[in-house]
């Protein structure tokens, strides 16, 4: 290409660029379905909510329920556990969050039972902080499900849930 053609673009150049751009858009449009088919499908998205009856869960007990294929911990906390969770100074937490923001009723802690490091299921009533201990790479969580030590970056996730009645919750 001589300087001349750059200085004075021909109608052809515009056509080439326009055609090339359209071809790129078309190719991307064709590739998208091939990639997007791998995303969660309609049946997976449809598994939206799970109800849990709380009557059988005694203080101190943790029950694991399944929601969207994932474990959710429903923990009936004892007064000591509640006090521990509430009295921890926020400054000592890697991912500071008040206990009151993580529960709807202090006795009931509902968290997704998946370690925020690489997805293992932590073991209840273990680890230094009486919450959970993850066997995979040693993260520990407290009685509010907050990360206290180890490689996990954040607190156990609190799912969306509502109290349908005093003794029943609906997750999702």
């Amino acid at each position, binding site marked *: 290409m001589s300087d001349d053609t750059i200085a004075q673009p021909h109608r052809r150049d515009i056509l080439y660029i326009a055609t090339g751009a359209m071809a790129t858009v078309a190719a991307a449009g064709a590739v998208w379905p091939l*990639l997007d088919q*791998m*995303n*969660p*499908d309609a049946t*997976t998205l449809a598994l939206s909510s799970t109800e849990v009856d709380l009557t059988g869960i005694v203080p101190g007990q943790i029950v*694991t329920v*399944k929601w*969207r*294929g*994932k*474990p959710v911990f429903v923990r009936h906390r004892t007064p000591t556990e509640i006090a521990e969770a509430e009295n921890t100074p926020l400054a000592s937490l890697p991912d500071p969050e008040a206990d009151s923001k993580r529960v709807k009723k202090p006795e009931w802690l509902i968290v997704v039972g*998946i370690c*925020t*490091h*690489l*997805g*293992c*299921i932590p*073991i209840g009533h273990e680890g230094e902080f009486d919450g959970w201990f*993850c*066997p*995979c*790479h*040693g993260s520990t969580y407290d009685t509010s499900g907050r990360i206290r030590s*180890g*490689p*996990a*970056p954040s607190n156990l996730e609190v799912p969306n849930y509502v109290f349908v009645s005093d003794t029943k919750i609906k997750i999702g």
Partner: protein
Amino acid sequence: MSGPSKFTPKSPFARWLERRLPILGFMYDSFVAYPTPKNLNYMWTFGAILSFMLVAQIVTGVVLAMHYTPETTLAFASIEHIMRDVNWGMFLRYAHANGASMFFLAVYLHILRGMYYGSYKEPREVLWIVGIAIFLLMMASGFLGYVLPWGQMSFWAATVITNLFTAIPVVGQSITDWLLGGYSVDNATLNRFFALHYLLPFILVAVVAIHVWALHVTGQNNPTGVEVKEVEKETVPFTPFATMKDAFGIGAFLVLYAWMMFFVPNYLGHPDNYIEANPMVTPAHIVPEWYFLPFYAVLRAIPNKLLGVIALFSAVLIPAALPWLDTSKVKSGRYRPWFRKAFWVFVAVSLGLGYLGAQPAEGVYLWAARILSAYYFFHFLLLLPWLGKHEKTRPEPESISSSIAAANAVTEDASHV
């Protein structure tokens, strides 16, 4: 090496074909007449061993796929069905499972051979990088295959590895959901892992072909690291010399492989993988397959999620930069006394990391893993560049023939004593 083919078709059919598709000439030039340095040692037979193992994995894999079911409620049972009911099923499965281990053993020895003799240096940089690509594809194939039996280790390996991507800021979680086809490892995951496990080995075949192509452009390195100067004097034709030596190497390797699969078929496996996958319970102690352990140790050594994942991927990829990190003009470790020591320390550190990867990530193990991980990167990023500039190397031989002559003189002296 390149240039017009020396192949002369003998039969009329061969002549007819050669004018239309010169495939016989190509095979002849690549695997019969191809000149190989005279002084290659047995570390040069691993290329052939690896090719053999790739074919072995494909053959045993395709027949296993005739009996295996990639569906979460049936997969585990279909493996037991293979083990108990399918004719020869147990041997086919043990051949495939141990074949993966043998494949990795061979690739590690092949890579270390390249490191010791400086085979990644000019003009073989592209050959080396294609080799690292092969290694990555092998890791992917091995990981995907390990998920298929749908045991506890399968499930939790799949969970931990796919969750590595959640470390990526902002888009990490979406990438993981996309890889899994859901919010946790489930049927969608198993089904696609099977499809990909079937696909990747054939992509490997294509990448191996590129690797061999690059090899045949530059020619092989050799233990002296000095390039071939006189093709006539310093090389022998691939067939029969390399073909026979490679066949012997494969035979010796098969003895080990057969011993593993017939006598200790579960030695390298994990007993927990004979427990069906349970998405609600993580085993108390999860470990990856042995060939991933050093990298797993690096991941766990770092108490921060994102940095741990970055360190893991860097540890795998950093060898690709060797042609530029190792600044020494001398190729072979034979003439580099300090490099040679550093090389063996590196081997020991890698084995140490492998050991630590299988231990619980706590206390003294964790600190040892931190020190060894730091050394691993120190070796590549500081030691090699520094050594290349400051090491006093020993004189390289004039040529391959003079090094052979010198070696012969020594043995003759010895025989006179």
